[in-house]
């Protein structure tokens, strides 16, 4: 009998309140018709959240990394932020805060035939990080990942196009439809592709495409929050059945894909610990 993860309710609550609602709570956009650009936009959050979203109040760390690459500056503060958060909790923000992760978790609940994801695709997120977030923006001064990001399309690209209010400062629509070209439609295509994939596989975007997940993944094995498997583990595979990343925790403790959601601790043989050793 599969046990329901003990902390799942709290995780859903955290994903919804902190990830989805609090980070996207700029309701004044309804009257100002322009994105928030106050002091809080100077801070980034440890999960993907497009700062061009009409309701966003914080910046996206990947958007910021691209900005520094495109302007050819060394992002001292941002790298320090990645190192400190990564060392303390590893990929926990992916499991506990990321709203795109929540969407994937919810869509996977749709009852249909499910498919696995080949392991070699796990490495593609590192290629995306290095190529689309660092090298191409550095060489072309264009934020390539933002241009193609499916989550950016979902919470910023699509809402702005559908709403397209009149900007009170310029007395003209915010979006000039002549500016919409091939890249926009490519981005929408990528979004549709992933939305369909979410129904058939567990968290495909997190596993193969998320550049922020790739950054946190590097710290998973040395972060404070880690797991131990007891020696009397019976290989019952309960952990991989409940794991939102389809990991067999008993074989792959603190794997680079582990999002520290603690769902696997519903098995008595797996425990989470929060210490240096």
């Amino acid at each position: 009998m599969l046990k329901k993860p003990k902390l799942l309710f709290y995780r859903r609550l955290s994903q919804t309140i902190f990830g989805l609602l609090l980070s996207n709570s700029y309701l004044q956009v309804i009257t100002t018709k322009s994105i928030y650009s106050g002091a809080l936009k100077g801070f980034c959050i440890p999960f993907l959240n497009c700062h061009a979203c009409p309701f966003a109040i914080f910046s996206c760390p990947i958007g910021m990394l691209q900005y520094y690459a495109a302007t050819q500056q060394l992002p001292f503060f941002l790298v320090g932020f990645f190192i400190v958060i990564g060392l303390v909790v590893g990929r926990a923000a992916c499991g506990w805060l990321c709203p795109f992760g929540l969407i994937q978790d919810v869509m996977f609940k749709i009852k249909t035939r499910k498919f696995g994801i080949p392991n070699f695709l796990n490495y593609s997120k590192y290629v995306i990080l290095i190529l689309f977030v660092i090298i191409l923006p550095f060489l072309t001064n264009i934020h390539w990942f933002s241009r193609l990001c499916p989550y950016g399309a979902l919470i910023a690209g699509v809402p702005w196009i559908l709403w397209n209010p009149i900007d009170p400062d310029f007395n003209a629509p915010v979006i000039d439809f002549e500016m919409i070209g091939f890249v926009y439609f490519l981005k929408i295509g990528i979004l549709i592709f992933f939305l369909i994939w979410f129904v058939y596989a567990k968290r495909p975007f997190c596993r193969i495409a998320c550049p922020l997940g790739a950054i946190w993944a590097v710290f998973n094995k040395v972060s404070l929050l880690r797991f131990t498997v007891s020696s009397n583990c019976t290989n019952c595979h309960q952990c991989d059945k409940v794991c939102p990343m389809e990991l067999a925790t008993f074989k792959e403790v603190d794997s680079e894909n582990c999002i520290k959601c603690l769902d696997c601790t519903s098995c008595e043989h797996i425990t989470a610990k929060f210490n240096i050793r």
Partner: protein
Amino acid sequence: MNKNLRTILFYVGLSIGILLIIVGIVIGNDLSNMRLEGSDL
């Protein structure tokens, strides 16, 4: 991973991370100066 190596990596990494954050703030390379450019339409 060896526990001692992990402890050393943790402390060295944390020190470097905190140092980078401080350097970033001191030289004005923090996030407050970032030009906003989000989802490209």
